[in-house]
């Protein structure tokens, strides 16, 4: 199981702040996880589309498509930050 968090516009569009996901076989990196979420269709297909500016972190470090994901990880998806 991994924990997946959604922030800001993404959280609102997906209607979800967090969820637990059991990683299917073959989903070993962030890119594969994003594809899995996209395959849910609807808002998921739209918000996780390749053209969308989605940022991600794995265990609170900025991550990219090829970042490995392991059981127990905390993964977060969010829009580009607009702080301060």
């Amino acid at each position: 199981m991994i924990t997946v968090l959604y922030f800001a516009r993404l959280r609102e569009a997906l209607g979800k702040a967090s969820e637990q996901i059991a990683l299917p076989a073959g989903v070993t990196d962030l890119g594969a996880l994003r594809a899995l979420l996209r395959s849910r269709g609807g808002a998921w297909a739209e918000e996780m589309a390749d053209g969308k500016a989605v940022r991600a972190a794995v265990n609170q470090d900025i991550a990219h498509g090829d970042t490995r994901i392991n059981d127990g990880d905390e993964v977060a998806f969010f829009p580009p930050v607009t702080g301060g």
Partner: protein
Amino acid sequence: MTVRIQTKDFDAGREIAALRQGDPGIGAIASFVGVVRNVNDGDKVTEMTLEHYPGMTEKSIARIIGQAKSRWNIFDALVVHRVGRLKPLDQIVLVVVTGAHRGDAFAACEFIMDYLKTRAPFWKKEQTPEGERWVESRESDDIAAGRWRLKG
């Protein structure tokens, strides 16, 4: 170093006094206070909500301060960042950097602010007379952060 994420307001004078307390080697203190403006991209802003990623926020800001310390000759740094509902004229963020001399303190303070605006996980939603909107990432902020990379 000190990093605080909080909903309540802060007093820059008190924070400066606490950070420099008892260190007679400090000669320079550079500070920055960010404030909610009543306009953004030409539209009137009546209120905003600042959301963050608890845990990652503190961790990423601590890392930024560490980078500043390795790059400039500074003694200490403080970041206080507010989250939650804020109105125009409200203070949002305070950065204070102490050092022996002003050049390093100024550079490190501006460096930390540039990174706060472009890398730390904060998201701003604005309420305008036309309704709510999430603020989009600003190109000029990305340019400001990029400056430092060129210098590395």
